[in-house]
């Protein structure tokens, strides 16, 4: 159990919480991260489009834009030191209809105003030269060279591990139940015991307003979960698109993206569906089928390619488009709410902003975690000797990689956590070949086990 008084307690171990914990820990604070789930990244951060955005289409002059720009810059600065991948493939913003085409110049002006000045307008011929598989009825578009593919989970794990290297502690299965502010400190009562901290950062994502009410008795924002369903094609489809293919965005959503993943697949999604439930990330076959059709209208050669996975993510949107970030240092509280869709890109920038709000002087990192290479074109462990053999044949995950994910600063506590750390069972067979071996390797290691128990009398 975490002892003593912490300088900072971060509520929520999503990508934003992990980045904030990292910032405070590097800056010399004694940090505790509280997470209600069995493992980290179990809420909004478990499903997204895995893109590092430049902010070219973010609202001008917004805090969101500042955080995306700062987060983007810091990621590019630090990713190599942590072995985190970056595929600087660039994005094409595409117009398929006349009104979309009419919106292009305005978007380019906005991009320039947002500090993304290297965009270039392209006509149909130029687009088809860049992306020969694009449907030929594309009208026009522009290229944003800075948009990039990253590994959404390795990045967040790296932030967490670096926080832990700098003394942060992680408390899992610790749901915040009640809280009291006493003079200069908080006393937080969680399902895993009580702790004390000077400053609380509410980074509870989908539960942000709920946690705000526990802390202050009321919430000044309401979370409106917005579900995004995705389909993921098998690796041969990744050859069909080099760039991230974005439609001209609407007010509500960036729209359906078609892009490769850093793991060598191709994804189509997300949808944007408002719902009440904060946990139900159900996929709906009719919606997935519609996504497949949308994908095929953009890249006709996707017809006949195999879909090997689907998933849904829940974005912690609020009743307003803007990020809901506010500091009340009298009360020892910084609220980071409503990080509706750009959290992965902005996380490091949000962390900088929060540290500034809290009045911390920036520190310098002493240690850097070395993350395992999971990117398709990276030097993967299966290529190196002594890897113990491959367990997950679809994603080429080795016994050594699995062993490493079961050790380390924040060992996997569930199959979902192990998937995010290693990619096991994420491939085309979805566990047909490796589930038994994984159940064997992880027996007794997870707080949320794969198994319902041992066989009493195997025949």
């Amino acid at each position, binding site marked *: 159990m975490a002892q003593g008084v912490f300088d900072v307690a971060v509520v929520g171990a999503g990508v934003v919480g992990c980045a904030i914990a990292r910032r405070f820990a590097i800056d010399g604070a004694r940090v505790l991260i509280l997470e209600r789930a*069995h493992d980290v990244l179990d809420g909004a951060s478990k499903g997204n489009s895995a893109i590092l955005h430049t902010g070219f289409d973010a609202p001008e002059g917004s805090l969101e834009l500042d955080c995306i720009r700062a987060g983007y810059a810091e990621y590019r600065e630090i990713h190599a030191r942590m072995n985190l991948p970056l595929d600087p493939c660039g994005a094409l913003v595409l117009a398929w209809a006349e009104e979309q085409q009419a919106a292009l110049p305005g978007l380019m002006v906005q991009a320039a105003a947002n500090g993304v000045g290297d965009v270039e307008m392209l006509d149909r011929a130029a687009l088809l030269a860049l992306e020969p598989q694009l449907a030929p009825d594309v009208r026009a578009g522009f290229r944003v060279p800075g948009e990039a593919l990253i590994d959404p989970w390795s990045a967040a794990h790296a932030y967490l591990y670096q926080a832990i290297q700098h003394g942060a502690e992680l408390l899992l299965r610790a749901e915040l139940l009640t809280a009291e502010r006493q003079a200069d400190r908080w006393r937080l009562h969680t399902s895993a015991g009580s702790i004390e901290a000077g400053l609380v950062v509410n980074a509870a994502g989908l539960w942000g307003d709920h946690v705000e009410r526990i802390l202050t008795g009321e919430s000044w924002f309401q979370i409106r979960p917005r579900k995004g369903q995705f389909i993921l094609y*098998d*690796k*041969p489809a990744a050859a069909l698109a080099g760039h991230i293919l974005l439609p001209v965005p609407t007010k509500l959503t960036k729209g359906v993206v078609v892009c490769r993943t850093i793991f060598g697949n191709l994804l189509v999604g997300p949808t944007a569906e408002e719902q009440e439930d904060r*946990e*139900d*990330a*159900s*996929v*709906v*076959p009719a919606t*997935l*089928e519609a996504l497949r059709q949308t994908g095929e209208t953009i890249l006709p050669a996707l017809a*006949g390619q*195999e*879909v*090997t*996975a*689907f*998933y849904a993510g829940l974005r912690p949107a609020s009743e307003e488009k803007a990020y809901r970030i506010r500091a009340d240092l009298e009360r020892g509280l910084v609220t980071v709410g409503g990080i509706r869709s750009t959290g992965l890109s902005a996380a490091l920038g949000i962390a900088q902003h929060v540290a500034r709000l809290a009045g911390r002087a920036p520190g310098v990192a002493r240690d850097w975690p070395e993350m395992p290479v999971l990117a398709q074109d990276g030097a993967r462990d*299966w*290529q*190196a*000797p*002594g*890897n*113990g*053999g*491959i367990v997950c*044949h*679809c994603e*080429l995950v080795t016994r050594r990689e699995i062993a490493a994910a079961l050790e380390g600063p924040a060992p996997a506590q*569930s*199959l*979902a956590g192990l998937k995010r750390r290693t990619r096991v069972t994420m491939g*085309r*067979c*979805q*566990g*047909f*070949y490796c*589930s*038994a*071996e994984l*159940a*064997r390797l992880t*027996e007794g290691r997870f707080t*949320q086990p*794969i*198994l*319902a*128990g*041992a*066989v*009493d*009398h*195997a*025949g």
Partner: protein
Amino acid sequence: MQADVAIIGAGPAGLAAAAHLGLMGVKNIVVLEREPEPGGIPRHCGHSPFGMREFRRVLGGAAYARRLATRAEAAGARIHCNTTVIALHPGPELDLTGPGGAERLSARVVLLATGTRESSRVQRMIGGQKPGGILTTGALQGMVHLNHQRPFRRPVILGTELVSFSALLTCRQAGIRPVAMIEPGARVVARAGAAVLPLLLGVPVMRETRITEILGRDRVEGVVIDGPGGPREIAADGVLLTGAFRSEATLMAAAGMTLDPRTTGPEIDVFGRLAEPGYFAAGNLLRPVETAGMCWASGRRVADAIAVHLTGGLPCPAQGLSLRIDAPAIRYALPQILFPAGPGFHKSIQLRVSRPVSGELRLSQGGGLIARQPIRALPERRITLPIPRKLGEGPLSLDIEEDA
């Protein structure tokens, strides 16, 4: 590494081919197996019988797998386990990785015997949440028979194929009590004998019923089914997806080789050859699942062809004639390429239908009927049509004249 014949997959087909090639005097045979032990799927099938055709006795899956491996090794083949083929190249050449890291292998012949796997939840497009406890039979049998582990206690079983009843037996052996067997079709797919099993075990079979949604955040809590009585929820702590086999043809797809959308496997000629020089295929990779004994026979047959190929005795692939399927009721037929000179080593065209059919199966060439056979077939039955001793030139067509 160099080999005369490199066989990918140490299941019944690959091991049968290895043993048979060794006995025919082929010297440098390697079998590449990515699992820690040879034997393939039978290794973790709990049910009998295996081995009637091959060893003239009834064996359990694990014992059968060991015998196949022993026989291949006795014939001089070297089995490399924990060795994964990463990519296929012309030559043939293979990129491998094993305990010693990555390496390249060149061979005179590569035999693809990578088998089959059951369709995943994604391929079946079952919606809902993504909790733990959704498994295929292959995964369940590995957990129960290799590890003595129990992934769930009260699952629903989707499917009524032969493998579904194998899964039911495994459940019984492990003290797992399935809530129901769910079959989207109007009939239980597997033959009558197996169909009485769930009655004996007290498991209700729900026909014309689909699983539309899986419920549960961390673990399966239930499923929504839609059947004759309308949609409803049933409680369960697992979902067992059985059957709906598809070829494990990933390496081929990645290498840009042609796959037959009907079988999900490679296109082969009557010698088991692929279009790519030096590549052959056998076993369950060729089409949705058949028994281990059938795969074993397929491995022996392709070994005969490979032995002739190594002496330069097979006809030029350019003479091949594509077999066109002209009846919508035919789900697949193979081999996909026949030769004017006659049957080669696949003596028959093997096919299955997608619905119950009765009528006459007809093979014609250039408009003229060259073989015919009355059929009365169900989807789960394998149908064979002997290939005429001599075919002429011209395109081939396979059709069914259905009874009115």
